[in-house]
């Protein structure tokens, strides 16, 4: 067997024995995993499972109790690593602004100077907007856009500055079903052409079917990384939850059901 350079696995993200405390509560509990460059990873987990905290840790914004996080072999520091971040949706300020200006504010947004947008910046912003089909939206005031439309602008914003790693926190949350599938397709295509690694947190796995390489499943701050067929099994999830879990197949979808009152977390389309 000969190995081509492409098959050499380069970990873009390494997390070792990570524990994060908020007060006395363990938000992330001895989490270890490593992700190869170019992967498309779905981050799953219920509310409060630690998805957003994990993203903030990868960005270097949290002080850890224990553990190490390396991006491209470097220990993380805010703004140092090449990471595109899309935070969870919330109300946007400056509704009178055109969407374009809101997006462009992130172009080298950490660098000192005036918010002056040169040709290169305009080209990059327009390319990012085109990638999420938001060029037309961007010329309207933010206040006139729907939640889903604002979300597409924020997604475009995460594409700026040529990141190697994309952290997308619930980028599908306020989209309708058709838009979800379309958005995942666009993220996938953009990430592939730019050779980006993607971590995308979501509650709904259906639109991701056929795109994802790995699932990172979080429960109460504990994590399990693997291929879909490795993670979405009763055995693996029972070990992760620490209580008996069933993975139920119904209507062509997989449902994760915990014993305490059928806490249906995620559904995903079955393999085969």
């Amino acid at each position, binding site marked *: 067997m000969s190995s081509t350079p492409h098959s050499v696995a380069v970990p873009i993200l390494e997390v070792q024995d990570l524990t994060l405390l908020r007060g006395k509560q363990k938000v992330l509990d001895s989490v270890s995993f490593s992700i190869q460059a170019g992967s498309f990873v779905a981050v799953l987990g219920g509310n409060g499972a630690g998805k957003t905290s994990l993203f903030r840790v990868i*960005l270097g*914004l949290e002080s850890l109790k224990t553990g190490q996080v390396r991006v491209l072999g470097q220990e993380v*520091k*805010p*703004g*140092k690593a090449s*990471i595109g*971040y*899309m*935070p969870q949706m919330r109300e*946007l*300020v*400056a509704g*009178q*602004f*055109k969407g374009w*200006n*809101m997006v462009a*504010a*992130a172009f*080298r*947004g*950490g*660098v*000192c*100077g*005036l*918010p*002056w*947008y040169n040709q290169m910046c305009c080209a990059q912003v327009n390319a990012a907007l085109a990638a999420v089909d938001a060029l037309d939206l961007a010329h309207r*005031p933010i206040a006139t856009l729907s939640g889903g439309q604002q979300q597409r602008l*924020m997604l475009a*914003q*995460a594409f700026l*500055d040529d990141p190697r790693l994309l952290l997308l926190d619930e980028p599908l949350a306020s989209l309708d079903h058709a838009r979800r599938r379309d958005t995942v397709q666009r993220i996938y295509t953009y990430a592939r052409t730019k050779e980006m690694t993607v971590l995308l947190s979501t509650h709904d796995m259906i639109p991701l079917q056929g795109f994802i390489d790995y699932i990172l499943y979080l429960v109460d701050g504990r994590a399990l990384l693997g291929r879909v067929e490795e993670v979405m099994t009763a055995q693996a999830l029972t070990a992760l939850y620490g209580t008996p879990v069933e993975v139920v197949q119904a209507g062509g979808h997989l449902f994760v059901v915990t014993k305490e009152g059928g806490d249906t977390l995620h559904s995903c389309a079955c393999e085969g």
Partner: protein
Amino acid sequence: MLHYAFMRAAFMAALLISIVCGPVGWFLVLRRQSFASHALAHVGFAGATAALVVDQPALLGFGVGSVLSGVAMGAISYRVIGHDVIIGLVLSLAMGIGVLCLHFLTRSAHAAMSLLFGNILGVDTNTLWALFFLSAGCLVVLACIARPLLLATLQPEVAEAKGVSLRLINCIFLVLVAVATVECTQATGILLVFTLMVAPAAAIIRQGFSPIVGMVATTALAVGESWGGLVLSWYTSWPVVFWIAALGAVGFGISHGIVLLSLKRK
């Protein structure tokens, strides 16, 4: 009217003050921190009167008071600042201390009047130089932090991810607000800081210009309103501050009208 040295000085002072109030006010309104300039002016008042009591220049006391409180505000998190009861208490305490100092300062009611309502027609050369250096320093610092400050305002989480310290940048910005407030009170007094700091910016921001255009337009409007106030005051002999406040309101009204009209046309 430009034959008189005091009018020339007044126009110069109005220009120096407006070029700082424009961009700082633009960010202030965008960040929804308008109230901060009001608060800083009140604490500055206590500082100014205290300085007068110990025979120091009011401007110095004002500057120290409001810059220190700007730093303090920035150091404490947003959430505490948003607490209107605490702000109210601090403001009334500051005004109370100011009044106490004035009580000890029986010789000059004039000083109190010019602190409260401004005295742009009485600006001397020293004050003009002080304004020049304050404005220049303020603009240089703002030019350096404008880009991260804009992102921190629009998308705080993204700014953090790009290595911007929200706390630090808020702190620096509030110091700029404090300096701009100190300058502004020379023209409008403590009670009418809003007229130059907030009114032009509020009018321009409604128009949805891009950041640089918005800041320049705000500055132009601030210069226009303060100069307009001086001219109208010259011909009517009504107080300058009244005219600046009136023009501020008119400017905002016109801007609002333009927005309404453009909505109707659609």
